[in-house]
């Protein structure tokens, strides 16, 4: 199932997106503003330089005739430019000749030192230019003009405000857009999720239906098998009656045919019994108790050994297990019975029953030295009606191992086998 995106994660994603956009916008804006600032600084510097040139040109006579009043008048013409803090004229020796201060002299006098050599050009927040005053090609003085950068900085703040406004509105717009898109995405996600949920429901419904159908089918086959027994008994019984009471009136050929009917109906009855047993193995209640598997195996061996007197049985020590006693007995009867059956033809039939500890689980085994089977058919060994040998060689219906497998699986265990043709087989199983 697809989990919906965590809302905290969504929030972080939004913040991250906005942050990225904001940083990009901010950097672009800041670079633009810085570029603008330096461009305007250069412009201002150029303006001041040409202003200095003009003032120098107009101050030459005042300096030549030592007319400080005229010099001051020239400098005062700068008052139309509010960014000019101070302007000063120095004579050829660099001594202060005339000076203009923007605010009627309140500007710090350190801005216009008595000697040009003391003038500081690199004052914070200011820009200064000096220009030589020339007369007929000879320098007769110097003009010093200082401008503040207030207008420039004011404009810079203006740009900053615009940048902030742009940041604010564009991030706001981006946020709105993102929430809208996210809502749409969430809607799509929801419908997908709803579809997933109904899908699961549908699968569960279908599974339930299948389970019911399977149970019905099993019940049906059980009852069919069960109901087949009665007519089969009739066939078998009446055939035997005919064979016994009418033996003189039917031919030898007829007698032989009736014997075959009896034989086959017997075999069919056996098959039906096995099917019913297999079915029961899947349906009966599992009742677990403490079972001494060693004692149980001993009892089974004792029952079966009567028919196989030449077979030696080696029963190892086995633990007490949690299992359904009846089912465990059936498992052991099948496996040990097979071992007796398939080893009976050996020169010295031998059966070994034991426990093989293996990585924390108990693996039981039943080994014989009988005919064995071809390992390439090992996969079919536990299938229904699968037989490795003909009925003539070894009697049986091919249901026993299928039942064993089913019973072991009901206990949560596994079963597998190893064999070599003519050397015997070993069946391993675990119980949970």
């Amino acid at each position, binding site marked *: 199932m697809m989990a919906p995106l965590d809302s905290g994660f969504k929030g972080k994603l939004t913040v991250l997106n906005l942050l990225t956009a904001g940083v990009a916008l901010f950097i672009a804006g800041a670079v633009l503003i810085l570029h603008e600032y330096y461009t305007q600084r250069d412009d201002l510097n150029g303006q001041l330089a040409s202003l200095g040139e003009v003032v120098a040109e107009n101050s*030459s*006579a005042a300096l030549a005739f030592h007319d400080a009043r*005229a010099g001051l008048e020239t400098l005062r013409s700068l008052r139309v430019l509010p960014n000019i803090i101070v302007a000063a004229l120095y004579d*050829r*020796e660099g001594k202060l000749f005339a000076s203009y201060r923007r605010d009627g002299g309140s500007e710090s006098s350190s801005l216009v030192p008595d000697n040009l050599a003391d003038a500081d050009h690199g004052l914070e927040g200011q820009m200064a230019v000096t220009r030589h005053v020339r*007369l007929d090609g000879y320098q007769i003085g110097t003009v010093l003009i200082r401008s503040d950068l207030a207008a420039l900085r004011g404009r810079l703040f203006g740009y900053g405000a615009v940048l902030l406004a742009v940041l604010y509105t564009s991030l706001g717009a981006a946020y709105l857009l993102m929430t809208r898109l996210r809502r749409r995405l969430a809607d799509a996600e929801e419908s997908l999720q709803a579809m997933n949920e109904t899908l699961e429901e549908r699968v569960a419904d279908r599974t339930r239906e299948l389970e019911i159908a399977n149970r019905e089918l099993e019940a049906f086959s059980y009852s069919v098998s069960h109901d087949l027994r009665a007519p089969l008994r009739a066939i078998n019984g009446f055939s035997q009656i005919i064979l016994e009471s009418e033996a003189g009136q039917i031919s030898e050929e007829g007698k032989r045919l009736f014997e075959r009917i009896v034989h086959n109906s017997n075999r069919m009855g056996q098959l039906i019994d096995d099917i019913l047993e297999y079915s029961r193995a899947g349906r009966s209640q599992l009742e677990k108790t403490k079972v001494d598997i060693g004692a149980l195996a001993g009892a089974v061996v004792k029952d079966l050994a009567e028919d196989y007197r030449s077979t030696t049985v080696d029963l190892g020590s086995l633990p007490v297990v949690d299992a359904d006693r009846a089912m465990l007995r059936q498992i052991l009867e099948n496996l040990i019975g097979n071992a007796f059956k398939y080893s009976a033809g050996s020169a010295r039939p031998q059966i070994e029953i034991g426990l093989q500890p293996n990585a924390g689980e108990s693996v039981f085994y039943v080994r014989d030295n009988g005919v064995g089977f071809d390992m390439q058919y090992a996969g079919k060994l536990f299938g229904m009606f699968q037989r490795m040998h003909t009925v003539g060689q070894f009697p049986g219906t091919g249901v026993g191992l299928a039942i064993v497998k089913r019973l072991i699986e009901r206990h949560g265990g596994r079963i597998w086998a190893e064999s070599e043709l003519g050397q015997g087989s070993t069946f391993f199983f675990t119980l949970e």
Partner: protein
Amino acid sequence: MAFFRFTSIRRLLVGMAAACGLIPGAALSQAAPEYALKAAYIYNFALFVDWPAEVRKSGPFVLCVTGSDLFGTAFDAIAGKPVKSQKLFVRRIDGLQGLDDCHMLYIAPAEELRLDRILEQVGVRPILTIADGENWSGRGVMINLEMKQYRLTFDVNLDAVKRAGLGMSSRLLRLASSVHGRLP
């Protein structure tokens, strides 16, 4: 004002002349400070006045001096200095003779009685007339120097300047304490 730091007119004038940067220190000891300054002014006038192209030929730029003046050696300080592409040359003449080569003519106060005749002789020749008499600009001298309250000032007779076909820089005119005639 800085002028009051000086204790005498003499020292004031020397200081001003030195401040103008036009007078070598050696000249000051020999010339009277007032006249050293006047000489510096006269030299500066040459720089703010334009003569017609035909008289600005190569050769010396001639400052003629007429009458017995009080400059002593003051003119030595400016003699040989450059005026645009020319070199300044000081020549003493008799007021009524040898005016042809002059670019500027200084008329000493001693010529008071002959002033009108001298000016008549100059006529409309492109010669900048300079004097330091009493209100002589009203009598037709183009630039008249005058000491006023420890300052050397000058008056300009603009009509005379124009009649002579000379051009005077507005920057110079602005410094004049009074101007006769219409401003351009």
